[in-house]
């Protein structure tokens, strides 16, 4: 008979006492992160310097923010390939607003407006994804391919395909500011994670999300509007991608429609899966996604700092995803 493996969906179940093996399995991701850090302490020069920590924190934040949105989408049994492109679009839109004539005239208002426009673009892109999937019952992987191409195209049209350099310290705070010595965007990533994991646990929307991802048919028969849940989920993912796009532009003091968010969809999916997401849906480990993002970032950094070629880094990432999925399937009985 075809038995589907029962994977652990909620992480902790009824089990009270735990032995070490179980502990390792349930917290495998966390242990992997610790192991990575320990390995780096030994092999990577200057790993423990504040500067290194800072670089890693600034870079991990964008992955984490997008991965949080991706975790929600995956929880709905979907996937969003357009996040990187949406980052490019939002990242290009914000400077577009404050660099315009109007923006030069009233910089204060323009700053607020630029951020609002960038987030709105993310929201609309997300809603478009959700709408496509709902309206035409297309597979999410195909539906989000549309914006994967179109959103970056739009960003390139906006910027004529050129790097757009700017000098706007207020906006740059998003990417290089610090609060109490911690990079602003890292704090934002943590804030998003805390808020959204609360939303998943405590709100009706969170319940609906997990129900739709876990069994869409049963969810509909329980009165849940599957379409609305999907729309909202892709919209949240879009807004988060939009925010991440601004962070990247702010870090570089420039928007680069060609490079911003390149391959981010893969990093985000990898982070989500490593963090415990199940591609079949029904499970939203948001804090896990944070840890997953940290792992992806550290692997990248380790290879880079030890002079390994980029292409090899990609392969390493693929191996991590495969391992994560493998362990997920063995995390039962």
């Amino acid at each position, binding site marked *: *008979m*075809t*038995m*589907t493996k*029962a994977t652990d*969906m*909620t992480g902790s*179940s*009824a*089990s*009270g*006492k735990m032995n070490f093996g179980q502990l390792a399995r349930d917290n495998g991701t966390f242990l992997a992160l610790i192991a990575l850090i320990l390995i780096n302490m030994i092999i990577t020069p200057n790993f423990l310097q504040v500067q290194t920590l800072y670089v890693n924190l600034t870079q991990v934040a964008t992955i984490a923010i997008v991965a949080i949105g991706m975790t929600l989408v995956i929880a709905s049994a979907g996937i969003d390939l357009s996040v990187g492109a949406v980052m490019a679009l939002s990242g290009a839109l914000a400077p577009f607003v404050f660099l315009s004539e109007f923006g030069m005239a009233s910089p204060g208002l323009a700053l607020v407006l630029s951020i609002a426009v960038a987030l709105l673009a993310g929201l609309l892109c997300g809603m478009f994804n959700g709408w496509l999937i709902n309206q035409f019952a297309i597979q999410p992987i195909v539906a989000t391919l549309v914006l994967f191409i179109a959103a970056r195209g739009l960003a390139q049209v906006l910027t004529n395909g050129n790097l757009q350099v700017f000098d706007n310290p207020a906006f740059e705070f998003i990417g290089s500011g610090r609060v109490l010595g911690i990079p602003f965007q890292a704090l934002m990533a943590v804030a998003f994670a805390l808020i959204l994991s609360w939303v998943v646990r*405590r*709100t*009706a*929307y969170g*319940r*609906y999300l*997990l*129900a739709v991802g*876990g*069994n869409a*048919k*049963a*969810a*509909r*028969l*329980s*009165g*849940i*509007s599957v379409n609305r849940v999907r729309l909202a989920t892709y919209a949240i993912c879009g807004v988060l991608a939009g925010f991440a796009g601004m962070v990247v532009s702010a870090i570089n003091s420039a928007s680069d429609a060609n490079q911003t968010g390149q391959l981010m969809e893969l990093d985000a999916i990898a982070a989500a899966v490593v963090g415990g997401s199940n591609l079949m849906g*029904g*499970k939203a480990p948001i804090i896990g996604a944070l840890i997953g993002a940290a792992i992806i970032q550290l692997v990248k950094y380790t290879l880079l700092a030890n002079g390994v070629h980029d292409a090899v880094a990609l392969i390493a990432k693929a191996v991590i995803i495969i391992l994560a999925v493998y362990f997920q399937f063995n995390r039962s*009985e």
Partner: protein
Amino acid sequence: MVDTPVLKMTAIRKSFGDVPALTDAALTIRPGEVHALIGQNGAGKSTMIKILNGAYRKDAGEIELDGQPVRFSSPHEAQLGGISTIFQEVNLVHYRSVTENIVLGQEPKKFGMIDWPKAHRRAEEVLQRFGLNLDVRQPLHHCNIAVQQLIAIARAVSFDARLVIMDEPTSSLDSQEKQVLFRVIRDLSAQGVAVMYVSHHLEELFEVCDRVTVMRNGGMIATHEMSDVTKLGLVSEMIGRDANQIAESGATGFGKTHAGSKTVVLELQNLSNGTNVKDASLIVHQGEVVGLAGLLGAGRTETVAMIFGADHPAGGNMAFKEHRSFFREPAEAINAGIGYCTEDRKAEGIIPGLSIRENLTLAMNPRLAKRGVIPRMAEREMVADFIDKLSVKCAGMDQPIRELSGGNQQKVLLARWMATQPDLLILDEPTRGIDVGAKREIQTLIEGLSAAGLSVLMISSEFEELVEGANRVVVLQEGKTIATLTGGDLNEDSLLAAVAGEAEGAAL
């Protein structure tokens, strides 16, 4: 020499976390015998089976097959070793064709490729044995749950097995299909294949089984020759209470103490869906229990799905209270005061990864939530109350529902709908998979609710349940309402005649 038993399981132990599911369980099955395994919901029957076929790992104990110790690590391996299993929850691949589902794992090959014409022929042959003539190329999910169940059985039987395990194989079948199944079981037994048979319908055991083993709370109580026991005796062993006490009450928990009022709650006229529902009409009054009877494929489930807005009708009229049209979505129907407990609890009922608590309150979140936030205490209180009232056997309300035994999942789903306090509760096979004791409790509960004004529309393949529980029974046949039985006309014989008699006429 006496035959070595085909299966011998001894001193089996299994716990899930801290919760013991099996404590010192044992079972011996002789070659070619039909052996029943019975016990209350959560007694450990399915766990026993899953340990035998390698779906779960045992904590301790021995398993011998034909005298040889065995240890399977997956149901597939067990299949190769001669043990074929029909799981309690139909476990097939929904989007694949019927053929693929049947030949999966033993596909006929030609030049290394699957020989499709041969595969289809094989599938057709296998189904023929069950009197099923259907298009084997269609995807499985086009078939209703009863047909799916037959397909699962046909598949399991098509392997050359020494032992075929059937975990509640008849839960979706009506009396005719059951007879077909029993015939197949007798064939198997005559060929020397042993059958392990799990069911909550004790009458069935007397028809096909040779011996019976009773389980309670993860342990073995006794094994008997079927000819040495009575139904009452079995029940008393299952629930651990004195037989005399049980004998005093009737066969079901229904007592039909009230009649329902004259206020019409639901009126359905000439419903059709363009395919198998052609002309279904029925009326439900307030406080009334209306049964919906018919054979497999009569369109009962399709009819209620349209009442609930889960499917869209092609024609007909409906009025529910002051609402004078069909609902477009289940959400509308729920808002208007309808609850619908579906027949297929795995595909359309449970959200496997969510907890008992989350599953139970799923349909009432709009009412429970305050500004979108679910109040923790109120939710927990309500859930605790239902777990208590329906005696759901679980480790706690935060346990994932997929870990519950089949019957206990069913109780949670019933609670999901009772919790919404509907005016009309549609129940599709409400006591499927529920043990005799709990069944009575649930029936009593339904009766109590209807006495308080709730209307119930109940599909059931069990005539006993319809006759004792329903004020009126509407009989559907090939999508048409052909009779309504009430009062003195309502008994098992008249029902059988209405459901089956006419059907034979129609088949000619």
